[in-house]
């Protein structure tokens, strides 16, 4: 019976819900939000990429210059801050308190990110292969130059045998 | 944790000799794929009394060998056995198939893939 009267009494109480768009809900000021990247401080060690559990960070590399580029998917990120903890350069990565935005279908979030991720890994592999090829080329060129120089030297003083 | 090595032949007797309903509770049964179709089976128990030590029965066997069930002694073991037989793709005595996995899912997901 008591709960019956309580229930009637509840009719005259202030509602416990908040009127959302008018009145903001509670958000703590160190809310976990999106990750912010500061390019000038980064030392390009890729530790953040290795630490990130869902794979929301990936670096691609330019095949000509070797310049790395940072990619981040706010939709894959789980705001766990592992990347910030792993980063050896203070300030290169920061967690802001800005909440993530809802994704749109047009942005092709999942497939687009997966494609970008794979392409970035490929670009790095391609850069590594290219670097190897260039090194090999350079080595061949210097070897050739050396051999020519030696042959030249041998021509000038034919008495000495070539070792 | 106490580790007790046993084998399939002696498992039921060992567990029956150890398990007292009001002294221990059964935690779960587990399997670890050691490679080459060798599987290590583990049964975990825990005491009710402080300091609540855990006991683990271990038996190794080939994956094709039928695993004996301990549910005559430990009644709730059927849940863990049914789960393990699905996930490991092993035969366990009297275990129902299809408890954890659907008909069209991958078979034995927890086994190592053959190279």
């Amino acid at each position, binding site marked *: 019976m008591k*709960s019956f009267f309580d*229930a009637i009494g*509840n009719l005259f109480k202030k509602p*416990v819900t908040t009127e959302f768009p008018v009145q903001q809900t*509670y*958000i*703590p000021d*160190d*809310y*976990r939000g999106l990750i912010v990247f500061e390019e000038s401080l980064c030392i390009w060690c890729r530790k953040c990429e290795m*630490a990130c*559990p869902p794979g929301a960070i990936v670096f691609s590399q330019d095949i000509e210059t070797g310049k790395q580029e940072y990619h981040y998917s706010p939709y894959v990120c*789980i*705001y*766990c*801050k*592992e990347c910030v*903890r792993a980063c050896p350069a203070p300030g290169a990565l920061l967690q802001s308190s800005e909440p993530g935005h809802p994704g749109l279908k047009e942005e092709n979030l999942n497939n687009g990110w997966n494609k970008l991720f794979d392409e970035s890994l490929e670009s790095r592999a391609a850069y590594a292969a290219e670097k190897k090829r260039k090194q090999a080329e350079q080595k061949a060129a210097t070897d050739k130059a050396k051999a020519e120089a030696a042959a030249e030297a041998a021509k000038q003083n034919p008495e000495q045998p070539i070792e | *944790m106490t580790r007790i090595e046993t084998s399939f032949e002696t498992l039921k007797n060992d567990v029956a000799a150890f398990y007292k*309903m*009001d002294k221990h*509770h*059964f*935690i*779960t049964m*587990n399997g*670890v*794929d050691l490679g080459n179709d060798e599987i290590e089976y*583990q049964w*975990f128990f*825990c005491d*009710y009394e*402080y*300091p*609540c030590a*855990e006991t*683990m029965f271990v038996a190794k066997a080939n994956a094709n060998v039928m695993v004996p069930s301990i549910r005559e002694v*430990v*009644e*709730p073991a*059927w*849940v*863990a056995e049914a*789960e393990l037989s*699905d*996930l490991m793709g092993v035969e366990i005595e009297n275990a129902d198939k*299809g*408890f*954890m*996995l*659907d008909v069209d*899912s991958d078979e034995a*997901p*927890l086994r190592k893939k053959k190279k």
Partner: protein
Amino acid sequence: MATQYNIPVGAQHIALLEPLHFKFTTENEKIMKAEANVGYVHRGIEQACCSKFKFRQVSFVVGRVCGLCSISHTTCYSQVAEKLMQLDISKKAKYLRMLVIELDRIHSHLLCLSHVAENSGFEALFMKTMAYREFSMELLEAVCGNRIQYDFSIVGGVTRDLRPDVAKMVLEKLKIFKPQLDELVDIYSNNYTLGLKNKGVGVIAKDDVYRLSAVGPFARAAGIPIDVRNETEDTLPWKEAGFEVVTETTGDVYARNLVRLKELYVSMRIIENVINGLPEGDLAVDFKGFPSGEAINRLEAPRGELFYYAKGNKTQILERLKIKAPTFSNVAAMVHGFHDNEYASAPAIIGSYDPCLSCTSR
């Protein structure tokens, strides 16, 4: 013999929170037999943890096993990984873990209680309990930065510190909650209509708990003081923080409600003690190397004993990780508890089981 009917409940049903299937065999209104199917949401998390993710990342993956007790899973995994690595974590990290686990217990128990009320047909009490529960969600958000997935424990410690203003806020809100909890205890224990639906219903007696190895509030409601917080001191110092085990005797829905309610007082006491006695120290320890050997760990989640087994092989990726969730242990007891009850009581009984199927089938 009267005619027997088979009544399926689930996998989708309004009385169920999660995909769970029961098949009841009834005679007139009495349930003679029940069968359960719990494997609807198998996601292969164990397999992912030992093939795709590095062992430091796994603590974030296992948090996704369950939304309600995500902190229990992350902490339990972190502890088992620390055992593999033989790490000693600071006392401060231990205290902060206890704080979040207990806050989580408050919100999980209140959720369960509200669903018992709803499934018993007491909609107003459901609303009331849910309204009172909101403070715990806000506190978790303030402490962890996330409302649901806390990601608070990592291998080696915790991720965030407790700011003094947040600590003050926690204590204040607990003070507001205390009279509200008294009110809830009064309603759940003395309300006449709720008593009709809950007293003597869904009994799992002491013998059955022993026979079926049930854990958590199931066992405590039947009078067995089994609680991992009471059992191990090496991972978290529960007794130091003022833990006491709560038991009831009858083992019915009513007793399970009361166990959960009284545990909230214990949780509140632990939280207060943790905040008042928070030691200084590091949040997380640094370590190098890879896990090897095998280890097990148990932790008291809101629904009972959570068990992890891990085996390392000196690489980044674990060899095997086994998760045994509390509801998984209770499946056998759950099926038994319906026996000889009216079919109309089934929703309340299911609510009082507080089943967590995402944990069970992972």
